[in-house]
Each structure stands twice: as structure tokens, then as C-alpha cells.
């Protein structure tokens, strides 16, 4: 593997940019992550050498279309993959421990205190037959050995924390008695119960109304700031990424095709896929105008082409794209060298005031996996 997300690349990145004291910023470091799924047509790779890092107090967005492997990545991180899926390769270093090397039993110790996850579908992710109090308190019972009464008290605290009104009475309600937004809050509460260093939120608002979505995002932001958590936000909503995330990794067909600080990536995409996505959003257009859409659909997992994964839909495809898969390479100009980009980045980072101390040097370089990333023109 020669992608930039290789440990070697990362190490180089860090070695050249970060001092020892800044290393603690990086909560999670994923490299070379690969997940295989066994299907009746043989084993397919759903996630392929994915690498990124998440920093305390910051939000990393994993962006991509449905089926591109976002949730799979999240589940691999959390160690809760379906039985047909195998972690084929890679390291998941959480606070210095490689989770990928642990046995399932050992991993249980990390689930909760170190790493929390919020699921995509709040409707089904809560156990319908138990009160939310029981479910909220379970983490405390498992990891802190509290008794039922203490756990219930903790649950009420948690519900307060995530802004559920009248927690004392609602703690005994069942999931179906809550609205979607409330359920999502409960899921979030559950994930942050033990103040994990890393919070993975898998499309936490996709099923929700905009007004509720705004509430949930506000809550996530608040919690992140309070706990200095690293947040991995999975979504396919560009607008949410633009508003909430510090950095973004764009995924396509199991691969990270572009990553970097949000403002830079969105302002100046270095991968045709990112560009295509940005252009299909109907803004700044007259009504009735033709939207620019990406033709075709993502490749099936079992016939991902050997060259560039995006070749079948790419308007700039060349022979080399069919022959050789582009590695994830630094792309674009470094922000420090680009005044305009810095300005946007500062503005965009409205909430995480403390993280920028290390200066621009602490940030990962922008990377893109395209043979012609330099040739992309952005109007």
C-alpha cells in the first residue's frame, strides 16, 4: 500500500509538524483500515486502506454517498461488525492502543469509556422493550459496577445533560414514547455516558427534521466542547459538513478519495468526485435550471475496477485512471501559503477555539486520490 494514509506517511506528517506536547491532540489514528465482507460471490472489500486521524475537541466528517463504506468504517472502529465482515487489515490506534490487535473480549473494556458511538437509525437502535433509563444506566452498571438505583440516577443526569425535559419522570418511559429527536438525544447520551475520548456519530440527524437536526447538532457541539472529545461525524449532507466539521474525509466506494480541512476541500475540491458532489447541490441556481449531476452510480463492491475507483463516472477519465489506482497524495496548496484559504478556515472554525493553538502546522495536509488533481478547475 502506498497511500498517504499509511502509518509511515502519518508518522512523517506528525514528526514534521507536531511536537511531543501536541501529540495528545490526536485521539484516534486510523491507518490502512480494510474490511472484507464475505458474500455469495466471494469476499469483497468494503473498506479499503482507509486512514484518518481525529483530534480532541474537533470534528472529523466522513462524507460520502450511501453504500460507500462510512458506516462500515465506523463499525470497524467500534468493533461491532456483522458476523460476515472481517477486519482485514489496518491499525486503529486509540490513545496509544491498537484496538485492531485486541481480542473481542479485551475490546469490550474500551467500548464505552474510551469510545462511544451514535447510530444511524435512532428508531431501531434503542431496545424497544426496556425503559430508556435502564438502557442509559447500563454502561454504568457494566463499567462502573453501579447498582440499579445508582445507575438510574446517572441516567437522569445524562438525560439532563442532553436536554431532555423532566428527566425524572421520563427516565421510566420506553423508546417508542419519545419523538425521533428525543431518541437521538438518548442515543447520544448513551454514547457520551462515560465521557469517551472519541465519539462516532453515524448520520445522527439524517432521519430528523431540520429544526430538530439543528438542535442535535447544537447538542453535539456542546458535548464536544465540554468533554474535549474527538468527534467523527458521518454524513452525506454536504451542508452539515460545511457547518459542523473541522476536517473532512470524502469516501467513495470504500476508499478515501480526498481529505483535508473542510473549508479548503469545499472551496477548492481536488477530486472530481468531491467537485461533482458540490455541484449537485441546488443552490445559487435559478429555478428550473439544470442541476449538474454526476452521471451513473457507484460501482458494485464486487466489481470495483482495478484502476481509479471513480473512473466510470469521471468526466476527466484517462487511460492511466483505468490502469492504475491513484494513491492518496498531498494535494492543493498548504493553507499557510494561501491567505484566502486561511481566512475561510478561521471563520469556519467558529466553535473550537482551543484547538488551533498549534497553528496551521498541526493540521493534516490536504490529500486527494486523483491522477489529475492539479488539473481540476474550480469556477
Amino acid at each position, binding site marked *: 500500500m502506498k497511500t498517504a494514509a499509511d502509518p509511515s506517511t502519518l508518522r512523517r506528517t506528525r514528526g514534521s509538524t507536531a511536537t511531543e506536547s501536541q501529540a495528545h491532540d490526536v485521539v484516534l489514528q486510523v491507518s490502512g483500515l480494510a474490511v472484507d465482507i464475505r458474500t455469495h460471490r466471494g469476499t469483497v472489500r468494503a473498506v479499503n486502506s482507509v486512514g484518518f486521524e481525529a483530534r480532541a475537541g474537533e470534528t472529523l466528517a466522513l462524507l460520502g454517498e450511501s453504500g460507500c463504506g462510512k458506516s462500515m468504517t465506523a463499525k470497524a472502529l467500534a468493533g461491532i461488525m456483522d458476523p460476515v465482515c472481517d477486519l482485514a487489515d489496518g491499525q486503529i490506534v486509540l490513545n496509544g492502543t491498537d484496538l485492531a490487535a485486541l481480542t473481542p473480549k479485551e475490546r*469490550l473494556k474500551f467500548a464505552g469509556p474510551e469510545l462511544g458511538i451514535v447510530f444511524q437509525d435512532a428508531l431501531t437502535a*434503542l431496545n424497544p422493550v426496556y425503559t430508556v433509563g435502564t438502557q442509559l444506566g447500563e454502561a454504568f452498571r457494566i*463499567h462502573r459496577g453501579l447498582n440499579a438505583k445508582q445507575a438510574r440516577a446517572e441516567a437522569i443526569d445524562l438525560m439532563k445533560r442532553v436536554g431532555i425535559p423532566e428527566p425524572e419522570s421520563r427516565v421510566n418511559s420506553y423508546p417508542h414514547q419519545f419523538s425521533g429527536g428525543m431518541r437521538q438525544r438518548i442515543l447520544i447520551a448513551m454514547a457520551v455516558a462515560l465521557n469517551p475520548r472519541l465519539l462516532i456519530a453515524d448520520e445522527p440527524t439524517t432521519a430528523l427534521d431540520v429544526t430538530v437536526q439543528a438542535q442535535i447538532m447544537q447538542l453535539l457541539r456542546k458535548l464536544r466542547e465540554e468533554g474535549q472529545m474527538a468527534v467523527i461525524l458521518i454524513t452525506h449532507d454536504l451542508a452539515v459538513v460545511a457547518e459542523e466539521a473541522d476536517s473532512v474525509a470524502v469516501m467513495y466506494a470504500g476508499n478515501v478519495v480526498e481529505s483535508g480541512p473542510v473549508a479548503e476541500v469545499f472551496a477548492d475540491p481536488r477530486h472530481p468526485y468531491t467537485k461533482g458532489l458540490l455541484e449537485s447541490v441546488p443552490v445559487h441556481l435559478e429555478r428550473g435550471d439544470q442541476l449538474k449531476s454526476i452521471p451513473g452510480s457507484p460501482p458494485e463492491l464486487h466489481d470495483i475496477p482495478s484502476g481509479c475507483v471513480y473512473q466510470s463516472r469521471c468526466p476527466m477519465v484517462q487511460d492511466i485512471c483505468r490502469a492504475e489506482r491513484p494513491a492518496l497524495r498531498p494535494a492543493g496548496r498548504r493553507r499557510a501559503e494561501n491567505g484566502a484559504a486561511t481566512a475561510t478556515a478561521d471563520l469556519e472554525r467558529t466553535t473550537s477555539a482551543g484547538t488551533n493553538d498549534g497553528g496551521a502546522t498541526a493540521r493534516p495536509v490536504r490529500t486527494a486520490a486523483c491522477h489529475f488533481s492539479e488539473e481540476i478547475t474550480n469556477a
Partner: protein
Amino acid sequence: MLTYLRKRIISSALPLVVVVVGVFALARMTGNPAALYLPLNATQQMRDDFTARNGLDQPLLVQMADYFGGVLRLDFGQSLRTGQDAAAMALRAFPATLQLAATTMVLAVVLAVIVGCWAALKPNGIADRISSFISMAAASIPDFWLAIVGIWIFAITLGWVPTSGVSGASAWVLPIATLLLRPFGVLVQIVRGSMVSALSEPYIKLARSRGAGELRVVTHHALRNAAAPALTVAGDLTVGLVNGAVVVETIFGWPGIGKLMIDSILQRDFAVLQAAVLLTAVAIFALNILIDMGYALLDARVRPVTVKA
């Protein structure tokens, strides 16, 4: 809950009446019982006397009206065979069957849950294959045959348990083992199936993400969700037991309602038959209500007072 119960009871009343009317009419289609109760050389006069004495000469509707009149006064008539009060006979036989059925079902459920969970943990694994084979075999062995083999092996050859009868705890072993087999076999498959699907639900992943271990996941999170289908089937199986313990009762000399029913059918002992059917039907309806309440207990979503989403 109470209004719900009341409603259920009222809505069960009509089917109950239908059952009794049906039994009443059907029973009388089986012919005049006179020949069974009179000596073979009985004269026509004696037959007529018998028929008149038991009101069987009346038109069916009149008989039925009489009967329901009696039922309202809690008079269920008398047994032709024993001359006893029909209701008393049914009530006396009922507990035996109920005890047998209840014990059997409790055991079947407990065993099936254990085996079913064990199998569901690793779908298609060795344990799963073994348990599904055992359960299928269990569900497909003719019970009377098993009963007799059981007596032969365990009572005669090994002498561990008595062959039959109701005296002492050891006498329960064979009847229960015989009755147990089918419910156990069926339930294992149901539990396994619903456990497999429960275990693939997102909330199980969520529980794992909280650090819940395997045992906890199974016992705390999946089982209760998987219970409802098992409850439905267990209910149907219990109905089957109450209705169909005849074979076991016949072989083991268990004085239960099933045996009473078949005896009264074969002996055209209408009053007893009707009382027994009514009692059984009431029990079955009660069981159904209990099962509904069981759902509500298991899962708050089906509690009667909730907004339908």
C-alpha cells in the same frame, strides 16, 4: 388494563357460545346413546324410556334452550355414564391436565430458551446444527409411541420411574417427557429463529458498543425481544396440550380433561362433553388473554394504552 380485560372477556363470550352450540349440535349428530347405556337385549320400550328420560326426544332447539337455561343456573346436567354432575366431573379432571400442561410448558420453554439461545449464538455452527436436528426429531416423534418406549425403558428395564399413575413426583417424569417433546422441539426452532434475528438488530450492536459481553447481550438484550414470537407459539402449543393431552392421559392413566373428553365422546356422554369443552374453551380464551398480557409485560409498545405510531 381493566377496561381492556373487560372488553376481551366480552368479545370472547360469543365465540364461547358458538363453541358450545357447535359441540351440542355435533354431539347429537353422533346418534342416540341409548344403545350404549342399555343392555344389548333392551326392548324398544326401554329405549324410548331412556330417550325420554334424557330429553333426547325433544327437538334440538328445545334441548339447546334447556341446556343453556341450565347453564345460566350453573346446572350443566348429569353424566349418563356415572350419574354425577357433569360440571363436577369436568372440574375434577381439569386440574390434572392443567398441572401437566403447565409443568410441561414451563419446562419446554425453559429448555427451549436455553437450547435455542445456544444455537442462535452461532448460526449454522455445530451447536446450531445439533440442536436443530434434536429439536426437529423431538417435534416429529409420535407421542404415544414414545410413551410406550419410555415405559419399556425407564419403568420396566431400568425401573427408575413408575410406569404410570399420578402418585408421587416420579410418576410425572414420563408423561411430562412425552408431552414435552413436541413443544420443546417446536419452541427451540422458534426461539432460535427469533434470537437470530434479535441478535442482528441494531440495538444489540448498541449494547455491544456499550461494552456488554456476550452473555449479557443474550440474556439482557436479545432474549426479551425474541420472547414474543415464542410466546405466541407457546400459547398455541399450550392450547394443543390442553386439547390434546388425550394420548398421554390415556396411556399413563392420568385422570385429565382430555381423557374425560374422549371418553365422553366415545360414550356419548353429552353433558360431560359439553361441560368439558366449555371449561376447556374458557381456559383457552383465558390463556389467550394471559398471553396478550404477557406481550404487554414483555414489550411496552403493545400495552393497550399507547398511541399507535
